[in-house]
């Protein structure tokens, strides 16, 4: 995703000299094409994310469209107050790019696991929150973040993500992307875990369960209309995210459902349930450990359906 993002941003920067890319001294090799092509639109600010975000605000207030780039929690949590007070309060045209959402940097440890970022970014006023599910969605959100003035958060994978959508996407900001629009059970996925959601859906179908699947690359604005619709027409809704179940996609969907009494479908949230992800291993290993493998997703859905009611075992709690 990061190479796709850089390529998409280069296409934009070529057309618009207001676009600037700031990095907190990360992106070895990845940012080189941008830096070489647009030396006047590129700036390595050093290992100083608070200053990077403040400088980005100052540039944006002078008319620039600024992308700040770093990995994991560095471009968000390290400089959260600069994002809130400087970027968001001034509605500054700053786009915050995180490489390595979820467990992308698995073996490096919890400092590098971005597992609360969606929740924290989603609560900030004016912030648009985007987590693409594949390379086509990455191109889409890069274009949309540029085209929509004001703060954005782009939560990307590190690399090696699948190409799930066959064609370029034209979805508008805030709209979920249907992969399979009809089914008894609705799977809603955000971010790079989409590949596992696709596999889980196929496995469930093979077991005779009819399953719809949507990718939600936009957590803010959220496709609330779709969520309300699915809650009326589905037997079960399932959110899938490489993130805490608190405050991310699962939390966002739960908020929509809680304000709409009388909806039919119950909700199960699949994600990191509690504590830090302190097991050691690569992304795939950690997804297995924390219940995000296709098999684990299938098991959760199957268990719930077998019980046939809400009295389902509460996982991990």
């Amino acid at each position, binding site marked *: 995703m990061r190479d796709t993002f850089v390529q998409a941003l280069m296409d934009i920067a070529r057309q618009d000299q207001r676009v600037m890319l700031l990095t907190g001294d990360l992106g070895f090799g990845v940012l080189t094409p941008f830096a070489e092509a647009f030396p006047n639109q590129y700036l390595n600010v*050093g290992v100083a994310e*608070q*200053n990077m975000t*403040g*400088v980005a605000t*100052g*540039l944006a*207030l002078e*008319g620039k469209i600024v992308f700040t780039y770093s990995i994991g929690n560095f471009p968000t949590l390290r400089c959260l107050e600069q994002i809130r007070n400087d970027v968001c*309060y001034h509605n500054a045209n700053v786009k915050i790019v995180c490489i390595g959402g979820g467990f992308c940097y698995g073996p490096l440890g919890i400092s590098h696991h971005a597992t609360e970022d969606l929740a924290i970014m989603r609560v900030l006023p004016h912030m648009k929150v985007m987590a693409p599910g594949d390379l086509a969605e990455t191109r889409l959100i890069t274009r949309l973040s540029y085209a929509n003035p004001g703060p954005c958060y782009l939560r990307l994978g590190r690399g090696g993500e699948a190409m799930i959508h066959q064609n370029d996407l034209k979805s508008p900001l805030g709209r979920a992307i249907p992969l399979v629009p009809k089914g008894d059970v609705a799977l809603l996925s955000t971010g790079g875990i989409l590949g596992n959601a696709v596999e889980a859906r196929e496995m469930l179908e093979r077991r005779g369960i009819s399953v719809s699947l949507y990718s939600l690359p936009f957590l803010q604005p959220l496709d609330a209309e779709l969520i309300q619709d699915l809650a009326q027409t589905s037997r079960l809704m399932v959110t899938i995210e490489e993130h805490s179940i608190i405050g991310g996609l699962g939390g966002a969907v739960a908020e929509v459902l809680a304000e709409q009494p009388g909806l039919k479908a119950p909700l199960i949230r699949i994600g990191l349930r509690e504590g830090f992800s302190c097991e050691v291993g690569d992304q795939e290993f950690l997804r297995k450990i924390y219940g995000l493998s296709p098999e684990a997703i299938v098991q959760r859905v199957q268990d719930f359906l077998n019980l046939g009611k809400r009295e389902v075992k509460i996982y991990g709690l």
Partner: protein
Amino acid sequence: MNTRQLALKIRKHAVLMTNRGKSSHVASVLSMADILAVLYGQVLQKRPKEPSWSERDRFILSKGHAGAGVYAALAETSYFPVDWLQCHCGQGSRLCGHVSHLGIPGVELSTGSLGHGLSVGAGMAYAAKVDQKNFRVFVLLSDGECDEGSNWEAILFAAHHRLANLIAIVDYNKIQSLGPVSETLALEPFAAKWQSFGWQVKEVDGHDHGQLAASLDIQSEIGSAPTCVIAHTVKGKGVSFMENTVLWHYRSPQGEEFEAALTELEDQIIA
């Protein structure tokens, strides 16, 4: 109105506003009133009726708790009616305690949490440099604020990029939130720190308008180092019983103290 008259007006407004709003930080405004007066009365290139004029000099108050002073300076230099100052920190007031840009012409940046202004100012100065614009960016910090590490990130950045159009001013009154700076987190040798980070440093009497104007009204050569003006000031300057005390960082002037403060300022007739 000359700058000394403007400084006195800012001081009177500060006492009145913090009295009416029952709010804090009057001594922080009194400390920097002369700096604001020299900036708004003489140094800043500005068009109050066209606050977004692209060639204007930018001013950021990074010590946002002293926002009453900026509001007063803006009102007295015709950015908005002086009447607006009547309601500060009150219910439904336009003006909140820590300076905010929303709906207030002339405020470049909202602050209140310390250690934000210099980075944003550095971004503006960088933009001016790459766009080859001539405006300058002034950022006023408090001394206690220099405890914040984010400032030192910005200080490194501005020096590295030779942001000659960036001028940081430190209101060095030697008193921070709970006590003397020297006993809290010593800044000395302060000028040497800025110099060693690659800045040009000028130390001035922060109540001497001639010295302030000479140090601030500069147009540095492109590519030279940014400038730091360390303004030695007296916290609470102008109201004798507020000077050099921690108390008036917080206390709101009420009753006899309010009357006494105002009387003392009224007695400072400036030609």
